């Protein structure tokens, strides 16, 4: 329990474009520097490929591409946040790691819905956290990783099945 408590209300924040995003620290396994990525053919554009994390092979996705923004060339500040969501380990490539902040529950607001739904990244924003004067967009890791993908995978499977049956 003590582990849980020390992690409570803490968020890893990173910068992407002009905005700062936060992810609950429980979901974060570790943060590693950018490393060589092996591309996987025929996969979604935001899935950059595979990396070798000390013998474990994990997929990595680019957060900017996930938000359907223009990609930014990788620099030495580029980091990979290794997320573990429901035992799926996925690396998240971010432009720059900011800090770990504590955001009390009372400072977290539901994400404003007015007029913003057309922005793709808002699909992944769960809520908004206030830290002093600045604002962090808190992400829903599950949506970030899965959601539409899952649907997509399912639909792909269905397609395959129907193809097979048709043969």
């Amino acid at each position, binding site marked *: 329990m003590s582990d849980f408590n020390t992690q409570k209300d803490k968020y890893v924040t990173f910068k992407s474009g002009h905005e700062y995003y936060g992810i609950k620290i429980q979901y974060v396994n570790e943060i590693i520097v950018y490393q060589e990525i092996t*591309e996987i*053919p025929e996969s979604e554009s935001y899935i950059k490929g595979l990396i070798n994390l000390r013998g474990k092979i994990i997929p990595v996705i680019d957060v900017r591409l996930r938000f359907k923004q223009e990609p930014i060339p990788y620099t030495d500040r580029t980091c990979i946040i290794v997320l573990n969501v429901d035992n799926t380990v*996925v690396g998240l490539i971010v432009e720059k790691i900011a800090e770990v902040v504590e955001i009390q529950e009372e400072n977290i607001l539901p994400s404003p819905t007015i007029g913003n739904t057309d922005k793709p990244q808002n699909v992944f924003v769960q809520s908004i956290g206030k830290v002093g004067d600045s604002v962090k967009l808190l992400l829903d890791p599950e949506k970030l990783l899965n959601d539409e993908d899952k649907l997509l995978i399912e639909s792909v499977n269905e397609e395959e099945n129907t193809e097979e049956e048709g043969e």
Partner: protein
Amino acid sequence: MGDGFNTEDMLDVYLFENSQLLEQLQDIVLEQKDEACFDEDSVNEIFRTMHTIKGSSGVMMFENITEVSHKLEDIFFYLRESKPKNVPHLELVEHVLNVADFITNEMGKIQNGEIADGDTTEIMEKLDKFLDSIKGGKKSKEKVIKENVHEEPQQFYLAPMATSKSHFYKIYLTYQPEIQLANIHAYKMVYALKEIAEDILYFPEDIVSNELSADEILENGFKILLQTQSTEEDIRGIIQVGYDIEKVDIYECSAKEFQQGFDSVGSEIRIDLEGDFESIDKKEKSEEPKPVLKEKEPMAPGDFVIESKGPGKAKKLAKDKPRKSEKANFISVDVKKMDMLMDLIGELVISESVVLQNPDLKVPGLKLDNFNKAAGQMAKISTDLQNVIMSMRMMPLLNTFQKMNRIVFDVSRKLGKDIEFEMIGENTEVDKNIIEHISDPLMHLVRNAVDHGIEPNEERVAKGKVEKGKVTLSAKNESGKVWISVTDNGGGLNRDKIIAKAKKQGIWDYTRDEHSYTDKEIYQFITLPGFSTNENVTEYSGRGVGMDVVVSNIQAIGGTLEIESTPGEGSVMNLKIPTLAIIDGIVMEVGKSSFVIETGMVKEFVGLQENMLVQEPDGEEFVMIRGECFPVLRLGEWYNIRDYQVDLENCMLVIVEVEKKSFCLLVDRLRGKQEIVVKPIPDYIKKVKGLSGCTQLGDGSIALILDVAGMVE
């Protein structure tokens, strides 16, 4: 802590040991199921197994297991002692298997923390009936057997005192001092005496396994205790003073003396016998409960004594085969730990290559002789380490196959079919992971083969086939894959029936001509969900859930199922499963990506010249090599890889062959041959056609493994 027992641990040991015993038991039973009866060794072995299970279950207070195992023990006790003729062997086999099932089931409950509450009434009734039936009218024996019930759950040994006609002899043999290998001579004698013996004991007892016993025999003579119906003359007829034996002394003795073993026989010389102290100790210890029990049961012909284990051991040896070779020592380890170890070794190999190929070493003028020597040594050790961990994960298929044997037996008995089961290549070693996954699919296939594949006996005879059906299970390791096939010599698949059913189920593609379907395509129908050609649902199969589950299970571990069938001659189900372990692969590059192809798939490499390529109007490319024409697949184009080599002169053609189809892959360059550890592509990434996994190369980068068979499709 007060009771001083860690029951958890005890329970674990109990479950582990018993499950192993039961497995052994099944093996023995199934091995001899086709014989007329169990041989003596098996009867003894089954008896002992049941005895042990009964004992330990008694200690653990699992009463129903104790009860059932006790009853079966009684039966085998009777078989062993009275050697009744005309025992319905198959019925007996079934009883043994039923008991084994019952106990396994109960143990399963215990393992899951439930109460072992299985009802024994039915099984006990059956066993009782069976015991009565084999006993026939011999009432006198019955009373005796009942006494067995009083036995404590300790390791006691039941020694027979046989009938009143039996005589007991002490035989002392003195061998010529110049005889070589006196122990072998002694064993020959024991062997000869077994013909007439009801029971035989000898000393020294380790004559087969211990060469030093030869000296003992020469020095102190060879002593035999014999229980037989024959007379002294008969014995003298067998044991003749000859070139090897100098002197034979035969004394008749009482039953009591006999059952005391060598306590009395060897007492005067025991002191100076090497290595015998232990057994004396044992005897003394085991003596303690003995007097009590003995007093309860006065000695009489036709009665039994309960003898402690010490002397019993010697007896047990007497009718045993020569001791089995040393048993392998096993420990069970959590698979997770093994995986961790394997990952760590993988990392070690990578970091090793990082060290050995470190750019710092490339400074000109550096003297690296000693370094290179040490590096070579290290590389060797890490390769060995890798091999060892791989072999640790490998297990023979034997156990899985034997389970199938059981299924064939059960199902064929119930269906009244006479079926022979053959195993080929059961010692093929595969990754433990695979074993776990193929057990269920295999079971299905075997069951199908017995149920649907093999026709009923009458039908077989009518067709002029051998009456006995045959199911063959075979396994082999080839080009990095395990091939397992289930073959039956039954009726084969009925093409028309399958077509009719496919039409009925609405999965038939009417746009295609019936004849344009290949047999293979037709047979694939039966792997679709809900498809069963069997009109009658039987207990074992026919509900149409099965083949699709089999296929999906096999696909889950990257395997495939192929069906071959010849009408009237039977069908073959071929499973092809990649071994998850190490494969030998060729590493090649396209653009910045690395790919690996299993070495076994590659036929040859060809340097390419522009004029070798032939392009068809529809864009398909072919290459002519020595008059043969191969389709060409540009890997870079196929996967839309950036920056791949477009200058054909610099490219490499890899000719691959899979399932007798050949084609060429066009790659940028070859990097070398390497042993690679196959890892699955994370589930997060959807399956890509033609990729079967990934691996890390020596420099830590990742290469994708090409599934050539998948590309062909």
